């Protein structure tokens, strides 16, 4: 496959430029980065962006968090969904992918499945559900950037490769790094927690990447019927057994619906 030299700096700079168009989202990311920040402060910032606040309220009141209709204040909503979730929603807005016209085929479908799958799997990888869900939600951000930089080439990658290891390899071969790794670079730039960054960075190998790898595999099984299965035991470092796959996939399916409704993505 042809190698394409990507100017990652320029891509990340472009993200920064987009951030200036969503100042509230940028402030949210900055607020959460401060260790001293609390729910009240975050809710105060979030309240300035009606669309973002509505998304957080909707998610907090979704069946996903089990409190349908009970969350009436933004501050409470922030504590229910968790700071990282707020940050992730802000990051989606910050990156502009929520309003982007040109995205890789099946981008949101895959992202929602990854979010639900990661959330479902999180506990078995000792990652908080909401944090895991955030990793899944944002994992595809890098692919959106690759697609922006190389629309036709990346679309070919999508169409000719299986979601997961095969695509990571193809992306690495063409761009020098795969989509989740590019996401990791972006998240590092925004000072997301190191665990989240490493989980994406090690998507191809390494214990830190096992959660995302496994989430990609289950997503591929759900989204692409022709997907060639890879052993869950191998991908997850024996944390998830094949025998659990059916139950997990059922849970993911249910959560996808809830997340879609709540996030409107």
């Amino acid at each position, binding site marked *: 496959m042809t190698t394409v030299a990507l*100017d*990652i*700096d*320029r891509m*990340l700079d472009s993200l920064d430029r987009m951030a200036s168009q969503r100042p509230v989202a940028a402030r949210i990311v900055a607020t*959460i980065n401060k*260790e001293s*920040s609390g*729910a009240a402060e975050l809710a105060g910032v979030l309240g300035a962006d009606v669309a973002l606040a509505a998304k957080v309220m909707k998610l*907090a009141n979704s*069946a*996903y*968090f*089990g*409190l*349908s209709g*009970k*969350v009436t204040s933004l501050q*409470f909503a*922030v*504590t*229910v*969904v*968790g*700071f*990282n*979730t707020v940050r992730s929603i802000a990051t989606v807005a910050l990156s502009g992918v929520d309003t982007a016209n040109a995205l890789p085929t099946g981008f949101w479908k895959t992202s929602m499945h990854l979010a639900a799958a990661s*959330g*479902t799997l*999180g*506990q078995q990888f*000792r990652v*908080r*559900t*909401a*944090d895991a869900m955030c990793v899944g939600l944002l994992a595809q951000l890098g692919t959106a950037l690759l697609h922006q930089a190389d629309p036709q080439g990346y679309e070919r990658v999508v169409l000719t490769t299986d979601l997961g290891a095969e695509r990571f390899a193809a992306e*690495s071969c063409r761009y*020098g*790094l795969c989509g989740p*790794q590019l996401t990791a*670079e972006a998240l*590092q*730039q*925004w*000072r997301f927690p190191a665990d989240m960054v*490493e989980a994406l*960075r*090690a998507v*191809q*190998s*390494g*214990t*830190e*990447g096992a959660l995302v790898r496994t989430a990609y595999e289950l997503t591929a099984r759900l989204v692409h019927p022709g997907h060639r299965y890879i052993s869950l035991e191998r991908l997850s470092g024996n944390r998830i057994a094949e025998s*659990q796959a059916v*139950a*997990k996939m059922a*849970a993911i399916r249910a*959560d996808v619906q809830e997340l879609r409704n709540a996030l409107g993505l």
Partner: protein
Amino acid sequence: MADDRQRSDLLAERVAAAGWTFVGVPEDLSPSDLSWDGPRSMGIDGGAYPWSGLTSNGGVRRSPPTTDGSGARMTASATSPVDDARSRTSGREPRGVVAAVFHAAAAEPDVALLVVEPDKAKEPIILWTNPRTSELLGVASSDLVGEPLAQFVKGPDGVSLSTMLRRERRMTTSGTARTAVGETVACRVSATPAPDGRLWTLQVHHAHSDLELALRASADAHEYRFKVLAERSPVPTMMSEQGMRLGHANDALCALLGVTADKLVGTGWLDHAHRDDLERITQTVVAVLAGQEREIQARFVDADRRIHYTDMRFTPLHTPGAGDGFMATLEDVTERRAFEEQLNFQATHDSLTGLPRRSKLWDHITAAMADPAAGLACMFLDLDNFKMVNDTLGHKAGDALLVEIAHRLTGSLRPGDLVARFGGDEFVVVCGTGSLDAALEVADRIMRVLSDPVVLDGVEIHPRGSIGVVLRGPDHHTADDLIRDCDIAMYQAKSRGKGRIMVLDEGARNAVRESLTLVSDLRQAIDERQITLCYQPIMRYEGSTPVLASVEALARWHHPERGPIPADVFVRLAEEHGLVHDLGELVLDRACEALAEWQHVLGPLAPPRMNVNLSALQMSDYLLVQTVKRTLRRRGLRPDQLCLEITESALMKDPDAASTILTQLREHGVQVAIDDFGTGYSSLAYLRKLPVNYLKVDRSFVAELQDGHTAVAMAVISLAHSLGIGVVAEGVETASQMQILESMDCSLLQGFGLSQPLDEPDFVDWCRSGCPVWEGDTS
């Protein structure tokens, strides 16, 4: 040193090729500083070094290159340490500052540094390493320089790191380092490009530093202990990290609900919460997430659809910078609750019929009355002639009848109505309706099902009942009010002939209420011995001077508010409300006490005998004889000093029982008189058998004597004489009556004509003054 020189030359060559200026060993370093393979063997002209500063986010911010086009020299940016050094050290050699910074970075003990140069055709080549690299890989620096990077450090999955050598920015990835002994060490590799994009500095960290490993091990151990504690705990425990989503469910919780943990984590556990309790659980969680501790009772449904009652105790869990969750323990109180419910059922339900008892009835009505607008109808049912069933067929049959009635009543109710056993053969039905027609419809239905025959011990019984109905009105403030009124209505139904339904009549209600109040007062008066006696002499006229033959004790009740209550009123109330035994015993005791006292104070002037009236109901009291004996003994009287009077009509209610009791009394020596004789329907055959000492001619026959109607009085007196028993004329008021009675050979007289009833002091005075009798009105 030769190697050093060789490497130094190689690096100088490469650095020069990269557009840098290699200036050799700093002048201020001593020879000994050059004895190791390190950065101190090199010097870099700070002014020629295009410095890259780390941005605040850890990335690389390149200073704008200010090359002159040849790439030979570049000016430091405003943010460079060189520039800083120039501005702050004013005159000192900036390269010394640069060397110091470089030295500190190169000597960093936790980071392995490698300078590499990519090769288009091959793997990147190692140009320089720091001592930490040698420690990490176990290979001398001299053996690393010039070797392909992939021989020692690789990227994910063993791929080459060449793809991550980005000219534009610093990159980080996970990777592996292969040591001299073949061991593979997980590590994190960051590649920072030189400004010209020809050389890269790799920073290789252990994937986890010793401190990190120690902290993680400690945290893991801590978490493991907690996990074991939580998972092995016999207390079902759940833990949410955020909102209602469970992150953890322990073994005990799984066992309680009969499912595996993966069915409970997330929001799966909510599927097992009883749907009627889910809202309350959710509201509780909302409060807990806001930082409160809470306890609630909630039901959960296990995999076999069995309901478990639990006490849930919630504690908030706050994770700084993350969000709020909770921990909850569940105590399965199903068995305890079932036991408590059983006890409660037993306490609130009748063991024979299974119907609610009074307390439950009260609770039900009180709850219904909590809504001021709620319509409520209450019915009091009393079985007619139930006593007869008990008396004739036995209590077992009576119980069977009650069970059957309870069953029929339960079947007659509408949903939401209640039937309770009030006591004995009394039942109360409560209907949630404000419509009299609807209430009467239920009452009518009850009447119909009640009258279906029941076979008890082979005998067919047609039960009947009297029902009093009342609708809740403005005067009904409590359950007591409502039940009392339907009880009144039931008594109205009884008094009008039984077997009927009566709706409460307002006038009757007031009368009964007053009567009930009076009964309550009477009960108190008896308890406090407020019933007093007055005494009316019975005189014997045989000689020239009348002699005191006996004295009749007459009960009096002076109500503290209402004044004197007529004896016939309060005796009737006592008979109707079960107070007659206590009242009779009190009167008997006080009379005997008085006679004993008179004997003491009056001596021979005291009356020889005391007459005490018995109620009809006392004639069926088999304890009466014992009571009489005990009282006489206590007061020190002989039996013949007591004469018990029983009315003729009372005697004839149950002649056999009366005969038995009176015989026992007579055998003991107690005198017996039949009061008001001639007004009832005595069987002369019975009269002959009864152990009677006296007949008392009713005052109505005495009153008509002076009008010439002497036949009845004459007949009674003759009868007494014929039977060989004494005779007393009551109600003697005039001298002419006395004369006529004397002519009829009736020597024992009693009445206002002789003496009015006297209270005790007056009676004592009367005795002391020689029992002066007024001879009555001669008219």
